[in-house]
């Protein structure tokens, strides 16, 4: 047996190490479009001590390390670019504590969003977190690591903004607490009022350290939840509609979708507005306020509230929303990928037109979705294409469409979300050189050997 396998087996136990072709095949890929790169080893650690030992081993042997959750970024972020060890974090799936009064939970580095969701449903009916649209197997840690978004993003910002503390294993193997938990038993802040060190880890995709614990802020959960959809026939009205809606401060989540099929949706832009309340009065008040906010658009016939059928409502209110995943099978092909740059909301019309153009140019099935971030400070606009995994030409055209979409987003002042390696490189190149240099310094300081998810945030 390979001495690395032996060493790893000594740390996590033989059943939880593999260098087999099967694991190397599976963990070398994700369901998106990025090319495969097989790891050499896959390990399933169960404790922080095990992770520290693995990191020290990797440091001694100069083996790359890639921590992963469920691998659902779709942009290949946990495909091991230079082989090495993949740490599948999902055995560390505990919920360590829930502080109801201070509204936070502390979970392990591999705890799934589904499990947290179920736990709160069962034991804390007055608390919720910002559930993302990714499948329930996606982990809380990975979701905040990639600055994911969820149901509370319109109200609170990126899911990473809702982090309340971290525990990190540094590339040196040392264990580090980030935020209030470094000084106190409470995980109520990831930084303030002290210097905010969470930025050294969040968004780095594991290139600067491994998240072993995540404090996640929880928010009030109301008894009732409903959804309405406002439709408009031109993307040009969308920014104004969003501005009025966000001004009311009444909405929970605001999403937009536009797609050519099925026909009922064709040509319109659908602004999906969620709202919650503890009583019928609260709900009616919020609904009335939201409706009246758009009176101007209604009066000019520029938009109206459509009837949402029972079936559609059920799908929309589902949490996590399974229909976000089943989009993958539209071509009976098992795949979709999107470029979802973060842009100011007034770029919606441009992005929408660009997507229509790309779909025609590359002959692809597509839809546009957008999610409002932090009451309209920005939005995630997704150029989303569904592809048939068994059709090589379609895969290729999809890659080209996505690449063009990304370039376009950058050109209109947007930022890549969960950027692929190419997008990371482009971002570093376009960035203020001092900023890029600062990032380089941080990466080199924390990971001098360059073993942490290598390839990511490497560049100039």
């Amino acid at each position: 047996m390979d001495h690395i396998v032996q060493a790893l087996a000594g740390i996590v136990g033989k059943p939880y190490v593999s260098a087999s072709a099967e694991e190397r095949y599976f963990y070398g890929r994700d369901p998106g479009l990025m090319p495969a790169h097989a790891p050499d080893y896959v390990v399933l650690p169960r404790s922080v001590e095990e992770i520290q030992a693995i990191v020290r081993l990797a440091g001694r042997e100069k083996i790359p390390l890639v921590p992963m959750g469920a691998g659902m970024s779709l942009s290949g972020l946990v495909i091991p670019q230079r082989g090495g060890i993949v740490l599948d974090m999902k055995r560390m799936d505990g919920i360590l504590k829930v502080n109801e009064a201070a509204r936070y939970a502390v979970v392990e580095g591999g705890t799934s969003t589904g499990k947290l969701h179920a736990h709160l449903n069962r034991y804390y009916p007055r608390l919720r977190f910002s559930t993302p649209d990714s499948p329930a197997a996606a982990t809380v840690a990975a979701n905040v690591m990639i600055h994911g978004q969820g149901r509370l993003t319109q109200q609170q910002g990126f899911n990473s903004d809702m982090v309340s503390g971290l525990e990190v294993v540094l590339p040196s193997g040392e264990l580090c607490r980030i935020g209030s938990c470094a000084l106190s038993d409470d995980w109520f802040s990831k930084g303030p009022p002290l210097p905010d060190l969470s930025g050294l880890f969040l968004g780095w995709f594991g290139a600067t350290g491994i998240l072993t614990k995540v404090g996640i802020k929880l928010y009030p959960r109301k008894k009732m939840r409903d959804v309405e959809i406002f439709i408009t026939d031109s993307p040009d009205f969308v920014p104004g509609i969003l501005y009025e809606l966000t001004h009311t401060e009444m909405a929970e989540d605001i999403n937009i979708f536009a797609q050519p099929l099925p026909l009922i949706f064709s040509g319109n832009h659908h602004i999906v507005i969620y709202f919650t309340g503890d009583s019928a009065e609260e709900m009616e008040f919020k609904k009335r306020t939201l409706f009246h906010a758009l009176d101007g658009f209604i009066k000019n016939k520029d938009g109206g509230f459509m009837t949402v059928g029972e079936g559609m409502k059920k799908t929309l209110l589902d949490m996590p929303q399974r229909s976000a995943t089943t989009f993958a099978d539209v071509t009976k092909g098992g795949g979709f990928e999107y470029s979802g740059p973060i842009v100011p909301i007034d770029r919606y019309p441009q992005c929408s037109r660009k997507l229509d153009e790309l779909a025609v140019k590359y002959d692809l099935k597509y839809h546009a979705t957008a999610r409002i971030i932090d009451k309209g400070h920005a939005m995630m606009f997704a150029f989303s294409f569904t592809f048939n995994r068994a059709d090589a030409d379609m895969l290729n055209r999809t890659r080209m469409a996505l690449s063009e979409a990304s370039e376009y987003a950058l050109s209109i002042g947007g930022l890549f979300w969960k950027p692929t390696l190419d997008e990371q490189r482009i971002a570093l190149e376009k960035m203020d050189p001092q900023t890029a240099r600062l990032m380089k310094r941080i990466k080199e300081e924390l990971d001098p050997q360059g073993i942490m998810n290598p390839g990511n945030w490497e560049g100039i």
Partner: protein
Amino acid sequence: MKYAEILHRCFRCGYCKFTLDYENFNCPPYRKYRFDTFAPGGRMWLIRAWLDGEIENSERFQEILYSCATCGNCVEHCAFTFRENLVDIFIAAREEMVNGGRIPPPVRDYFKAISIHGNPYNLPAAQRSSWAADLPVQPYDGQEYLFYVGCVGSYDERGRKIAQAVSRNLIRAGVSFGILGEREPCDGNEVRVLGESGLFEYLAETNIALFRQLGVRKIITLDPHAFNAFRKEYPAFGGDFEVLHYSQVFSRLIESGNLKPGNFAARVTFHDACYLGRHGGEYEAPRNILRAIPGVELVEMRQNRANTLCCGGGGGNFFTDILGGEGDSPSRIRVRQALETGAEILVVSCPQCAKMLEDAIKAEGLDGRLTVADAGELLDASLRAH
């Protein structure tokens, strides 16, 4: 391979791993091994890779393929429309593997035993009805029902007790039934799920011919695995019988007043068998029995009905033991779940579940705190008390 055109549609999203409410992982091999390769998504991608020549048949690949318990949790919870074929796909892959001739030795031994002895225990057919030696159980000779006992019920020490209890209940209720005894063939369900479609076809055709020759029209099965084979698979070979699981028969008899359970005081919980529940669609009949016994307090485990955690015996693992019983095996997790309800008795409706869970209780050191009883045995005990 059948269903090969579905393989590439798997998005490896992981919904298949969970219970309905995401509270727990519910795929038995995934719970044990925790590599994504042992979850349904892993199997889908690896089978495709194997068929495309990107990976080869290996011991590890065989372990991945044969550790699937065919429990149907993925069929229940996969987000996509092809979910209903997931277990079929894993069985089809096993068929490919069997045709290729390189399969795990325990699987090969199982097929050999069935082929030669007609049962997996390598015991003589003559002993098949010895469990009924002290009971007034009649040979089948045109009675209303054929009571099909199956290999586990006939030969396994634990299974035989259940067969005896169920027979006693049937006799008490005056049900007209008979058994085939040493003529009873293997139903073939495990042969099929282990991938020997040729042998299964042979068994099905032989059995159907025998049943027809004897004039069998209605069958009561002891084992949900036989229930599944006769109901779902035999029609394709011309087998057209009315098939019931014994729990359904007892449920009806209790309702019609032909069986009057006596007092039996116990706090019990019920473990749904995958082949009766998820595959068979029957969740209530065994519960009806329990609810009808005065003194029995039924408390449900959180994971019940379509969310049941498979005991790990399905998919042939009861015989091949590939999924195994060490560490965090599903059966051990399950008995811990049962214990949490405060129940003294863990009730099952399948002889394979019975043995798997009993072994797990021992392994967990819970002897004395929790007992396994089949619903038929509980009913038998309550009727004897009457």
